[in-house]
């Protein structure tokens, strides 16, 4: 008994402390970033001005007036939304087929899809740039960004959906078949309503991944289709003197996604744990 009580007191103190330390370590750079965005570039580089400075909105107004923030933000929203929608449109039927009508190859197909994530993106940078620019002529278009974002995320989307669909008893789908529903009806009337939570989590995570994607969006766009990632990248001045400006741009880029994540915490936790938390 005594040992149990001892342990629980230990864990009552230990785990929250650990959680706080982790949270602070993780949060500190973001805190720093937001702080810096309200400083002038001159103040930003002086560590002694960490807390002692005159806050200014100059960086933000500069960003909106001179750097066309809204266009980048618009591109981010459009490409992320459509890439997410298309990934689901492809992923739902795909995961459905693999979950409820598996063949001997299903396991292998799933592994193969995941293995595409092991390919270093840099390895296909040249063909991707060359082909889209000189051959297909879709370089720097939203269409290209949407397609690439969708394809990059599709394996994760299918894996997540697959694991959610697996939780649905097979008999319920079979009952649907007996009740005269065709395949599309099974998806629309039974699968989607039943897996709604899982699909929403998947959509949310995919949207966040799309929003944060930087490797391809930076390299496959110049102006027309450039997203917020490109805006940040573009403000990374080589001299390294515009920390205030860079911080404002970064804060404005991650802001929407943080707010979104805040409101959808529950869905996100469920999504990230692949439904392990009930």
């Amino acid at each position: 008994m005594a040992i149990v009580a001892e342990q629980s007191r230990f864990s009552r103190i230990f785990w929250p402390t650990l959680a706080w330390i982790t949270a602070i370590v993780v949060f500190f750079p973001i805190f720093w970033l937001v702080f810096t965005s309200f400083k002038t570039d001159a103040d930003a580089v002086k560590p002694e001005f960490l807390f002692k400075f005159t806050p200014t909105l100059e960086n933000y107004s500069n960003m909106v007036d001179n750097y066309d923030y809204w266009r980048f933000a618009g591109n981010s929203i459009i490409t992320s939304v459509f890439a997410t929608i298309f990934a689901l449109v492809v992923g739902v039927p795909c995961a459905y087929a693999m979950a409820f009508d598996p063949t001997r190859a299903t396991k292998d197909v799933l592994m193969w899809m995941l293995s595409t994530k092991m390919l270093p993106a840099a390895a296909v940078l040249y063909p991707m740039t060359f082909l889209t620019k000189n051959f297909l002529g879709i370089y720097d278009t939203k269409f290209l960004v949407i397609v690439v974002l969708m394809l990059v995320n599709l394996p994760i989307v299918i894996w997540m959906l697959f694991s959610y669909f697996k939780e649905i008893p097979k008999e319920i789908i079979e009952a649907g078949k007996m009740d005269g529903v065709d395949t599309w009806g099974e998806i629309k009337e039974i699968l989607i309503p039943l897996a709604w939570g899982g699909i929403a989590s998947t959509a949310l995570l995919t949207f966040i991944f799309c929003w944060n994607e930087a490797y391809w969006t930076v390299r496959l766009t110049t102006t027309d289709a450039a997203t917020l990632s490109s805006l940040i990248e573009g403000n990374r001045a080589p001299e390294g003197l515009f920390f205030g400006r860079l911080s404002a741009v970064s804060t404005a880029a991650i802001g929407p996604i943080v707010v979104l994540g805040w409101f959808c915490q529950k869905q996100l936790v469920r999504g990230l744990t692949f439904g392990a938390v009930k």
Partner: protein
Amino acid sequence: MGSIKLKNVTKSFGDTEVIPPLNLDIEEGEFVVFVGPSGCGKSTLLRLIAGLENTTSGEVIIDGEDVTEVTPSKRGLAMVFQTYALYPHMTVRKNIAFPLRMSGMDPAEIDKRVAAASTSLNLNDYLDRKPGQLSGGQRQRVAIGRAIVRDPLAFLFDEPLSNLDAALRVGMRLEISEMHKQMGTTMIYVTHDQVEAMTMADKIVVLQSGRIEQVGSPLELYNSPCNTFVAGFIGSPKMNLLSGKAAEKYNAHTIGVRPEHLSISDVKGDWEGVVGVSEHLGSDTFVHVHFDGSSEPLTVRADGDLELEYGAKVYLTPDLKKLHRFDENGRAFKL
């Protein structure tokens, strides 16, 4: 409408053949029960008829039409699952209405049918609940309601009562039989409970390892089982099977006597034995008697008020007219 025919149907999962070539005729309006031990392929056979499982070879014919390649949704059959398989996201009303809505029926007609079904199944108080808020018995009623609203060609039941408690099971059993008498629709019912099979069926199909052992009415199977497997499977308590010396006296390899065809006496009889456990049911007493000619104790169905001392000496006499004889392959024969 509602005759079903299986022609040389086989089913293999990978390399294992679960159903060897099988032929079966189910007449329109019949109540057919598939019965057999666990894993003998009852569900698989039912699912082959439903179309939820593809045949490896052979044909499934419904009303004279080959439906082997037809999807389940187009076969016009309704199924009630062991796990009920209700749609958890829909209310009882929507569950029952679902097949009608999918067939594009007029909403007014749907309401009428749902009301009729829910009244006959005593579900009126639960129509706006979700399945999660119902008891097992109520869920099973909803599953049956969902099956009956659309007038299917035939009903398929896969052990629908096995998740219910004993009292409820007897009640539902009667209700399903009543339903069959009133609607006259073909029903195929899978169970491993031979009492359910005996009480409900017009025709029983006894299966073992995917093979049909015998097909017949409950009384046919009871009175003349074609082999020792069917003899031991149909009837409760089980038929007593004896081989060796005791059987040779009756010119058979194995003989079978049902508990109700053994008379018990403490004075004289053909077989001398020792009383083991007696089970008093009130209406009957099942006496287990240890007898040298049989490795297992023999069961005797005796009078309800019979009192026998444990370890007492008794004599048993089989009713010769009700004796079953089997050859060395277990097949029944008559003298």
